């Protein structure tokens, strides 16, 4: 093959652990074959479908179409090995388009299913100017390896809110790259509920400009030897905007959570308000969590904060719940549920919040019965 992406991938060195985004999950480990020189030819395209959450017809002005892969300007760097690899292996590109000035009464439902042995999909999201859109994304399937590349653009004045339930099979290796541009006076609120998979690496990068707001909320629950690695970057390219990152990871058994972040406020981007919070709840002596938030502030008049905390479950909380008749497992599950829900509470959409909370409750209730 001789596509530009292929050439780009082949030309890139395997990143060392000194690279912030690659500190914990080496490329070799997340690569589908473990051999960085190999580009598998037997990948199956994942399927994507669109409907409305309330069962009504998808309205005019909203479409999900397959296109030839289109590379374009994205916050995801071309020279990142995972991005280049995903561009190489994604043969199909699904484009979700919402025209300008569309106000949806019900959330969109985008369902992505990764079947087969190795699967991948590239998607893009275009929310037109001044549109108001909510969406629910579900990612499921039993593929042993799934690559997911997504880039999105929220045009001027648009309001976009989405939740994503990632419920892949417990054995799936999941590689994700996402790049988002949030336009002037636009808002993007997103919440990811990360439940499935065995080894996961997500690199999510966003750019915001004047008047825009982005909230990136993530709740991750790990059991067994699951490893969930999130790298989150937000660039305040211009000022007078708001970014908020909240990541809560609950780690049980010998699972691991990794969160690296970078908030970058460009020179002259005054009036930026940025915060980044990583919290880890360690439910077992063998669970591990590493969190490294970073700030790069080149402007003078900004508000920027970051923080990270890891702690075991508070025994006084358990005592309180057990004193109300909950057995130790049920008490712990309730604390975990609350901890993960607390990551979602700034979502700003009651409908989507309730949907995601319902999914979390079902997942935890099922786990309690196992």
């Amino acid at each position, binding site marked *: 093959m001789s596509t530009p992406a292929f050439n780009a991938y082949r030309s890139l060195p395997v990143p060392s652990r000194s690279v912030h985004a690659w500190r914990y999950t080496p490329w070799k480990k997340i690569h589908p074959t473990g051999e960085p020189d190999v580009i598998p030819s037997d990948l199956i395209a994942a399927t994507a479908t669109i409907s409305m959450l309330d069962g009504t017809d998808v309205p005019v002005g909203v479409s999900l179409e397959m296109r030839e892969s289109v590379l374009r300007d994205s916050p995801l760097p071309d020279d990142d090995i995972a991005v280049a690899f995903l561009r190489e292996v994604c043969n199909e590109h699904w484009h979700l388009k919402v025209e300008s000035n569309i106000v949806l009464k019900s959330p969109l439902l985008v369902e992505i299913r990764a079947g087969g042995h190795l699967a991948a999909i590239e998607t893009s999201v275009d929310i037109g100017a001044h549109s108001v859109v909510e969406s629910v994304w579900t990612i499921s399937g039993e593929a042993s390896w799934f690559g997911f590349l997504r880039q999105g653009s929220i045009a001027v004045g648009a309001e976009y809110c989405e939740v994503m339930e990632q419920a892949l099979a417990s054995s799936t290796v999941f590689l994700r790259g996402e790049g988002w541009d949030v336009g002037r006076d636009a808002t993007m609120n997103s919440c990811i509920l990360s439940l499935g998979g065995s080894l996961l690496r997500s690199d999510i990068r966003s750019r915001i400009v004047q008047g825009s707001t982005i909230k990136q909320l993530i709740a991750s629950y790990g059991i067994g030897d699951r490893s969930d690695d999130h790298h989150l970057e937000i660039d305040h390219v211009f000022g007078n905007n708001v970014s908020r990152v909240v990541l809560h990871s609950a780690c049980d058994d010998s699972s691991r959570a990794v969160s690296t972040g970078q908030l970058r406020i460009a020179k002259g981007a005054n009036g930026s308000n940025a915060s980044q919070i990583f919290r880890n709840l360690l439910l077992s002596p063998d669970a591990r969590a590493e969190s490294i938030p970073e700030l790069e502030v080149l402007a003078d008049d900004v508000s920027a904060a970051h923080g990270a905390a890891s702690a075991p479950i*508070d*025994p*006084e*909380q358990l*005592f*309180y*719940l*057990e*004193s*109300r*008749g*909950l*057995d*130790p497992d*049920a*008490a712990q599950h*309730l*604390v975990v*549920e*609350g*901890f*993960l*829900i*607390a990551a979602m*509470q700034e979502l700003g959409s009651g409908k989507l919040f309730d949907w995601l909370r319902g999914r979390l409750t079902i997942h935890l209730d099922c786990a309690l019965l196992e």
Partner: protein
Amino acid sequence: MVTPLLSIEDIHVDVDGNQVIKGLSMEIRKGEVHAIMGRNGAGKSTLAHVLMGHPDYEVTSGSVRFLGRPLEELEVWERARAGMFLSFQYPQAIPGVQVGTFLRKSVQAVRGDDAPSNKELRMEMKKAMEALGVDRSFLARYVNDGFSGGEKKRLEILQMLLLTPELAILDETDSGLDIDTLRTVATGINSVAENSGCLVITHYQRLLDYLKPTHVHVMIDGAIVMTGGPELALEVEEKGYDWLQPTGTTGVLP
């Protein structure tokens, strides 16, 4: 003879190697309201936590029976399901867990097969919340997260009303309450006390103005030094605790 709800015989309790309760005995029967008064550090809250089974407290000698069963056989949650309820002095916040969800799970756990249906529980909640002057929006808030002192105590009493305990232990439920809230909370306690036993731990006579204690105990330095009727609470309020400083024996008012 009817088995007491709670029977404590000469218990000694250590916390971090220090003896905090130094030989305490009492019995509580259905329909009785026992008040324990005492200064800070007397061991009152320790007693409450020991009875509920807090793992940091070690009963080094003596015995406690709840409904005839040795308490040490029961885990914390088993004590709750057997009918013991502790209203905490400092209730824990559980961020992300809505009060409504928490109440439903607690009621199902404690009342088991006798738990009301969801519809019946909603009715019970409505009635109890009205009695306590609690707004419906309470149910959507996270448990004790950002609650005022009065709201926390109201939630404790709301739980007590819904869990219908055999024995309610109230650990300084009156602390930090304004007089109106105190009156409301006392009404809730009285409604439970009619059909159960109550152990009310307090610093002050104030709460006892609204409850009808059948027994009043004064606790000093990990032991009960005086037991009497409601008049003892009034006397303590008037004289303080110095006159009750132990001389080596536990007294009983004539």
